[in-house]
């Protein structure tokens, strides 16, 4: 049973006497501040967009032969867009179920006393800098996982995504995707956990009282309540997966677009920028910034889809 509301009111400094001391000016100032902050964000984003577009224009107007690869910007960007999507998709396919499982474990399964410690442990994953993930992925994970790739290529090679010959170093897009999934896992877990914790206790207890098993209670009371928040969490994780540079740059043995996930090849936009920007000059800079702009557009599209999913379930959103 929650006893929160009365306590809240108590802490708010109950009596009308205090409320009477407030002047409406406080409200005015506060709402203006909030509005200003929101507008500042729009201004910054506008600034970033202008910066990107101005810097990227030469790449769109240049002679196609001058762009890297010699076939114009579209031919240059298309493979790495696909590579980005593949890497992010692998990361989310792995990370989403695990993160939700972990969040559920912490909130609804683990003994209460150790639950917050467990949450803390998972948050630790978010604390590790990406260059360390990159070094770990390149020197440890890739080496350990490459026998599995060889096995996959030999035994499941008829599936195009596992066609051989497998990479000798294990530095493939699948490894990069796995490293990315480890990186987005704490983001999705942390937010989902907070949202699961906020499920109205009354709903949960009502479900249990009706004889639901724990899993049925989660399905009926927790998930419907948490869905928009979890989608948000996944989107935040996706943002990280799409934009991650250093880990992918260190782990992936990049190359031309390939269907096989166990061969070297493919490239992501963010890694392409990170790998080439330091040495770039002139048109190359414009091309790379244009690639950044494309990444921007991809994120935009993905978020539109997410918004649409959330809006379909609006009736469940928290502040009902």
């Amino acid at each position, binding site marked *: 049973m929650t006893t929160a509301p009365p306590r809240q009111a108590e802490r708010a400094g109950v009596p009308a006497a205090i409320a009477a001391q407030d002047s409406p000016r406080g409200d005015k100032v506060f709402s203006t501040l909030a509005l200003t902050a929101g507008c500042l964000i729009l201004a910054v984003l506008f600034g970033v967009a202008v910066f990107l577009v101005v810097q990227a224009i030469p790449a769109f107007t240049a002679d196609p032969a001058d762009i890297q690869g010699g076939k114009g910007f579209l031919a240059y960007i298309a493979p790495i867009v696909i590579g980005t999507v593949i890497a992010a998709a692998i990361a989310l396919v792995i990370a989403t179920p695990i993160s939700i499982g972990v969040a559920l474990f912490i909130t609804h399964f683990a003994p209460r006393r150790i639950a917050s410690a467990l949450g803390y442990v998972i948050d630790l994953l978010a604390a590790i800098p990406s260059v360390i993930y990159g070094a770990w992925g390149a020197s440890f994970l890739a080496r350990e996982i490459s026998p599995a790739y060889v096995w996959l290529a030999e035994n499941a090679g008829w599936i195009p995504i596992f066609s051989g010959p497998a990479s000798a170093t294990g530095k493939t897009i699948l490894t990069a995707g796995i490293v990315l999934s480890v990186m987005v896992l704490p983001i999705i877990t942390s937010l989902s956990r907070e949202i699961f914790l906020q499920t109205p206790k009354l709903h949960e207890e009502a479900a249990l009282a009706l004889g639901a098993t724990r899993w049925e209670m989660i399905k009926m009371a927790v998930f419907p309540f948490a869905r928009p928040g979890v989608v948000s969490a996944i989107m935040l994780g996706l943002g990280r997966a799409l934009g991650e540079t250093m880990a992918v740059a260190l782990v992936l*043995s990049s190359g031309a677009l390939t269907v096989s996930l166990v061969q070297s090849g493919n490239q992501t936009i963010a890694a392409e920028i990170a790998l080439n920007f330091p040495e770039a*000059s002139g048109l190359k800079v414009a091309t790379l910034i244009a690639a950044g702009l494309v990444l921007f557009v991809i994120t935009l599209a993905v978020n539109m889809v997410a918004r649409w999913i959330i809006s379909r379930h609006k009736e469940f959103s928290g502040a009902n």
Partner: protein
Amino acid sequence: MKAIRFGRLSAVAVVAAGALALSACGTDNPTGSNQSPGATGAAVSGTLTGIGSSAQGAAMDAWKTAFGSANSGATVQYSPDGSGAGRKALIDGSAQFGGSDAYLKDEEYESAKAQCGPDGALNIPVYISPIAVAFNLPEVKELKLDAETLANIFRGEIATWNDPAIAALNPGVTLPDLKVTPVNRSDDSGTTTNFTEYLAAAAPSVWTDKASGVWPSSLQGENAKGTSGVVKVVTDTPGAVTYADDSAVSGKLGTAQIKVGESFTTISAEAAAKAADASTPVAGRNASDVSLKLDRSTKTEGVYPIVLVSYHIVCSTYADQKTVDLVKAFESYVVSEKGQKDAQDAAKSAPLSSDLRAKAKKAIDAIKVKA
């Protein structure tokens, strides 16, 4: 309520403790050396800012340390953002010099005039770095290769190490039946530019791609970021081969002798310096500029043709005398015999020949205040 108050207090206490920890004392003297201030009398002073090649980082550490201790009032700061970033920084005025693994391109030379005056910028070679072809074969430490074979290996045309083409060049060497795994740089780099330039010039029939800092994406192969990255991958993978700055190639890997003319040249600082000496000046530059156009397909014996020449790019004119003095003093030190030796000790780079040092010194002496 009391519990809450106490909680808040402890929270504030923790934050305050963190803030206190922040102000702990540290020192800027890890080496324990005695930097006697003003030891060399009234030298130059001020802060000199450079941005550029990350490969120059190790040599720059040595230079800025030695220069700083000889000129107590002067500081050199260097950010290893990358060669392209360094050239950009010189052109837009963010830095007083740029470190670059290549001399300015023609269009960059033109745009540098806005910042550097009508005489444009100067490219000053600061060291040479021989690029080794390093391989991981358990029993073999030395291999002889020619340009065509090398190009075929890196194009993936040669699948195993006991291929007849390699065997023909290495009579008497037992080559293993091991898969060849060529490893290239995943990042845009000066090392790749110089290596592909060599392949395109010396084996034009096999290497049909243009020389470029980015490895041709049509070729399948493994890659890794940075010199240390490729060396690590090759060290971990039997049968792998890469091209990397000689200083970073560890003793565990073998290095190839490259066929020049009729004989094979072993990689060495002297052989690399010969390649730089045999170069021709780049056309269309300032008279005292020292950009080197290397002859990759040279037939002169004893020359190691796969080298990278690293430059400092400076303006021919600066706005005030103080900056001019500072730049001249620093660059003169860098190309001096001592500067070259300091870099060699710290970074194992190959020093410039005395002839080249004289040319570089002449270019530095021409730097003056903007009219």
